[in-house]
C-alpha cells in the first residue's frame, strides 16, 4: 500500500480524519510524549506551523507532573498536590490528543503503532518520551522493600512514599546512591543529600545519623570544577562520599548494597537513583542506543537514521544533562530548525548543549550552575553581566528563591510555549571561567 493510500485508509473514518478533511490538512506531525519537552514543542508549533499541518500528541498519562518538585516532597517542603495538573490543561486547544501506549514506530513506513493496534501515520515525528527509573534492572532493587527502606524520588509515588519512610526514620545510616550515568537531573542526588542534612538537623536526628553519598563517578559531580565546589560542600556538612561504586545488587534483607568490586555499604534507609532508560518502544523500533536513547545529531536533535524523526528532552542521546532546562533550550532552537526543515531550507540553528540548574544546598540557599558541551560551569552572575541577580557556583538565598519561583515559570510560561528572557545559547558575558 502506498503511503498516500495508507493515510486515506487510516484517517477517513476517524474523528481526526473528518477534522483534517475540513481544515485541509495534508501534513501530520506526531509528538510522542506530553512531558516537559513534548508539551512545550506541541504548544509552540501549534502557533508557528504553517497552514495545512495537524499536530497529534500521544501520552499514556492524563496527569502532567512538575518533576523538579519531587525533590521537595520527601521533606514536606511541597505538598504533592502542587506538582500535578491534568494533561489536557497544559496542552493547547487545537492539538489532537491521543491517550495510549506506544507499541513501536515503523520508521520506513512513517507510522506509529499504538498498543491495541491503532495506527498513526506521520510526515514528521518528534519523540519526547523521556527517561524512566528502572529498579527492575538491578538485582534486588525491585524487591518488597522498594518504596520503603529502599526509597527513590524520581516518580510521584516514590517521592510520596519516601516522605512517609522519612517520617518513621529515627537515625542510623541514610545512604544516597546513584546507579549509573546518565540519569535525569544529575544534581538532584546532591540536592537531596544537602536537604536531608538540613532536615535531619531540624528534626534532632543529625547526631544519630551517618549520611553517605555513593556515586559511580570519581567525584561529587561530572564536571570537574563543579565537582570540586560541591565536593567541598559535602565535606563541610560531614557527609562521607564513596566514589567509583558500580552497583551489582541490593540485598534488601541484609540492608546492604554491593558493588562489582565487592565493596559493601550498609544502610538503614537507602535512597537510590535506579538505572535510567529511555522508553522500550525506542529499542523495539531500532532507533536507540543500549539505554534506549534515540540516536540524534547533538546540534540539531535530528535522528541520525531518519531525516523526519527528531528526539527532544531526555529521550535523546545528546551528551549533556538530562534536565528540563536542556529540554527548554533545545526546544526553542528546534522550533526554528523544524520550520526550516519542512520548508526545505538548510537548518539555521545549532544547539550547544546549554544546561543550567539550581542546586539546593540546604538552609534556604542554593547554587546555580550554567554550562554546555564545551564549557565548564562558571562563576559570575546570571542572567545579566555584573547585575545578576543570581550568582553562579556560589550559595545564595536568591538562588534558592529563584528555584522556588521556577514552578510558576514552568506552569505559566514554559509549558504554554512563551519565551522567557534567557537565550538558548550559553553566553559568556558576566561569567568568569573558573580555574581548572
Amino acid at each position: 500500500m502506498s503511503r498516500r493510500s495508507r493515510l486515506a485508509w487510516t484517517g477517513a473514518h476517524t474523528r481526526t480524519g473528518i477534522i483534517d478533511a475540513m481544515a485541509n490538512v495534508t501534513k501530520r506531525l506526531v509528538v510522542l510524549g506530553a512531558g516537559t519537552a513534548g508539551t512545550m514543542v506541541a504548544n509552540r508549533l501549534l502557533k508557528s506551523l504553517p497552514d495545512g499541518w495537524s499536530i497529534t500528541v500521544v501520552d499514556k498519562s492524563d496527569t502532567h507532573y512538575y518533576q523538579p518538585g519531587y525533590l521537595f516532597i520527601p521533606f514536606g517542603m511541597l505538598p504533592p498536590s502542587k506538582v500535578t495538573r491534568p494533561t489536557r490543561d497544559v496542552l493547547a486547544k487545537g492539538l489532537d490528543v491521543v491517550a495510549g501506549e506506544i507499541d513501536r514506530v515503523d520508521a520506513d513506513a512513517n507510522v506509529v503503532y499504538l498498543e491495541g493496534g491503532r495506527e498513526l501515520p506521520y510526515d514528521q515525528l518528534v519523540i519526547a518520551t523521556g527517561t524512566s527509573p528502572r529498579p527492575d534492572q538491578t538485582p534486588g532493587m525491585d524487591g518488597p522493600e522498594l518504596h520503603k527502606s529502599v526509597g527513590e524520588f524520581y516518580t510521584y509515588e516514590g517521592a510520596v512514599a519516601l516522605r512517609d519512610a522519612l517520617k518513621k526514620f529515627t537515625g542510623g545510616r541514610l545512604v544516597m546512591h546513584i546507579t549509573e550515568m546518565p540519569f535525569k537531573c544529575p544534581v538532584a542526588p546532591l540536592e537531596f543529600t544537602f536537604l536531608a542534612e538540613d532536615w535531619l538537623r531540624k528534626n534532632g536526628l543529625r547526631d544519630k545519623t551517618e549520611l553517605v553519598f555513593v556515586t559511580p563517578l570519581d567525584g561529587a559531580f561530572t564536571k570537574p570544577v563543579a565537582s570540586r565546589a560541591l565536593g567541598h560542600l559535602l565535606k563541610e556538612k560531614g557527609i562521607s562520599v564513596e566514589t567509583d561504586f558500580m552497583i551489582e545488587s541490593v540485598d534488601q534483607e541484609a540492608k546492604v548494597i554491593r558493588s562489582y568490586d565487592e565493596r559493601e555499604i550498609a544502610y538503614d534507609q537507602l535512597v537510590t537513583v535506579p538505572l535510567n532508560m529511555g522508553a522500550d518502544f525506542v529499542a523495539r523500533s531500532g532507533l536507540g542506543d543500549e539505554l534506549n536513547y534515540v540516536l540524534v545529531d547533538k546540534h540539531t536533535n535530528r535522528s541520525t537514521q531518519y531525516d523526519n524523526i527528531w528526539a527532544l528532552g531526555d529521550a535523546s542521546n545528546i551528551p549533556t544533562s538530562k534536565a528540563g532546562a536542556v529540554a527548554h533550550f533545545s526546544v526553542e532552537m528546534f522550533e526554528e530548525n523544524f520550520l526550516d526543515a519542512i520548508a526545505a531550507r538548510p537548518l539555521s540553528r545549532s544547539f550547544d548543549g546549554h544546561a543550567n540548574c539550581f542546586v539546593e544546598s540546604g538552609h534556604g540557599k542554593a547554587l546555580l550552575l550554567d554550562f554546555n558541551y564545551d564549557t565548564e560551569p562558571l562563576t559570575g552572575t546570571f542572567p545579566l553581566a555584573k547585575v545578576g541577580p543570581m550568582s553562579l557556583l556560589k550559595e545564595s538565598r536568591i538562588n534558592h528563591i529563584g528555584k522556588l519561583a521556577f514552578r510558576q515559570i514552568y506552569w505559566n510560561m514554559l509549558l504554554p510555549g512563551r519565551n522567557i528572557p534567557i537565550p538558548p545559547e550559553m553566553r559568556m558575558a558576566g561569567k568568569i571561567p573558573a580555574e581548572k
Partner: protein
Amino acid sequence: MPMTTIAGHEVEVNEEGFLTKPEQWSEDLGAELAKLIGIDMTDEHWNLVRFLRKDYDVQHETATLRRVSTQTGKPVKDLFVLFPAKPAKKMAYVAGLPKPKGCV
C-alpha cells in the same frame, strides 16, 4: 598538554595520564600502557581494547561499561576481573582513548 615518552613513543597526555590524541596509539604502546597499571594483556583483554578502538572510530566517544558489555557480550562482572576496580577507566587508558563520559 604535557608530552611524555612511553617505551620510546613520544605521546601527548592529560593530567591523569590519558592519551589526548587517540591517533598516537598503537598496540605496542597499548601493551606498555597496560604494564604501567599492572595489567598483563591476554587475548581477552585485547578483544575488549580492540572493540573500544573500533567503536571509538564510529562513535567518536569512548564506550561506557554498559556499552562494552552489551556489544561484546561480556558480563560486567568479567570486566571487573580483567581490569580490576575501575574497568571503564583502565580499558580506556590502555586503548589510548579519553576516559568515558557517560557522565554529564
